[in-house]
């Protein structure tokens, strides 16, 4: 098929020129031979090329068969196939190779057949893979983790540092926004009524207390950094900016003035 296509697309002269050598040797099929002979009657270039090729072949045929400079007879020893010498080390090395291969096979088989269990406290492979996601995608990862895992309550950093259990407050954004509004109202009240303790909301942590009046300005600047709530203690290094309340202060904080 390919040859036929080449014949179609190549020019008649090119195809004929490439067949001249085989034509000289009588290696063409009868149809091709007839085709070449018809072309040679019309194409003087191909006829001249055929003449020079014939001249070259005749000259090359003048090269003599050379006499071997020596005899190449083989001996009985050479005629036998070469065999490697048998040695004790060969047996030991082969046995060691078989033993190592069997051990490797057992290890691989046990790895595939035995159930895969994680030691307690280790993150599941799925979560571990998600931790490896770049920072720019962590927000999406957080959302996916929230869908997969039950919602975890927001934990203030102080509470985490003190080792206290997380507060059982929901982490919904709406609730967080409501709390932020409530906190803003309470802060306004605090500004109007200094030195009065305001009880935290019922759903807030019980150990939370209002910041002292005198230190209010300094605490206000620290609030954004300290009020960040980590949605997941395991997965999210990037915090979610949700304000859930004023700066938690230990109740034993001394009042200034």
């Amino acid at each position: 098929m390919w040859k036929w296509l080449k014949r179609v697309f190549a020019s008649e002269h090119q195809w004929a020129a490439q067949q001249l050598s085989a034509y000289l040797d009588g290696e063409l099929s009868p149809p091709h031979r007839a085709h070449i002979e018809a072309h040679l009657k019309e194409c003087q270039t191909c006829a001249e090329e055929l003449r020079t090729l014939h001249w070259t072949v005749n000259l090359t045929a003048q090269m003599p068969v050379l006499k071997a400079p020596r005899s190449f007879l083989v001996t009985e020893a050479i005629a036998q196939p070469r065999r490697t010498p048998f040695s004790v080390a060969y047996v030991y090395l082969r046995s060691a190779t078989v033993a190592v291969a069997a051990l490797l096979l057992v290890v691989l088989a046990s790895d595939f057949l035995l159930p895969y269990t994680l030691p307690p406290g280790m993150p599941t492979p799925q979560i571990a893979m998600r931790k490896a996601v770049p920072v720019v995608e962590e927000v999406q990862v957080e959302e996916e983790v929230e869908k997969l895992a039950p919602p975890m309550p927001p934990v203030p950093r102080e509470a985490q540092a003190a080792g206290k259990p997380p507060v059982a407050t929901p982490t919904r954004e709406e609730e967080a926004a409501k709390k932020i509004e409530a906190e803003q109202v309470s802060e306004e009240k605090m500004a109007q009524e200094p030195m009065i303790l305001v009880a935290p909301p019922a759903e807030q942590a019980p150990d939370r207390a209002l910041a002292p009046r005198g230190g209010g300005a300094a605490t206000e600047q620290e609030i954004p950094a300290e009020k960040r709530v980590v949605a997941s203690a395991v997965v999210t290094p990037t915090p979610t900016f949700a304000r859930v309340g004023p700066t938690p202060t230990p109740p034993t904080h001394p009042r200034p003035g």
Partner: protein
Amino acid sequence: MDEEALIAAAQQGDTAAFNRLVLQYQDMAYTVAYRIMSDPHAAADATQEAFISACQGLPRFRGGSFKAWLMRIVTNACYDELRRRKRHPQSSLDALYVEEPMPASPLNPSVESPEEYAERQELSRLLQARIALLPDDQRVVLVLSDVQGFSYQEIAEAMGVPRGTVKSRLHRARAKLRDYLQDREELLPARYRLASRAPMQG
């Protein structure tokens, strides 16, 4: 004992039978090796290696043309030697001029005169110089076809390539050799020049 019987005996381990095959083909094998390598010593080494390989591999011979099978081993041995020489090139004063080995058939005065014999030797040296410059694949095909007279099928078996590949390689090799000879036609003896030859009929 004919060739098939010798091959059968050699396959059964008869070294004497194999050596009769060696005597029958060693000139041809050495000629092919020399035309491919252009070095008498390297050609002798390759020929010896080829016969040893053929003797040890004869049980695997499954019939067909023994000549083509043997020449395939010879050409492979030459390829190995050429590759080895390319990796470890060596130059010596002996390599500057290599004298053409003696032909297998001595001068026959009834066929050609001593002058004609000398002219043919000179022509052979000139051709060998150009053949040595051909690519390896084209050189082997040209030697097997035009020097040894192998058919395309035998060359295809010897080289392990399709007949179409043999045809194209041979055509390219002949065209290069033709151009070389036409450029140096004045160096050829008068009876070998193209102008002195009558145009081919048919």
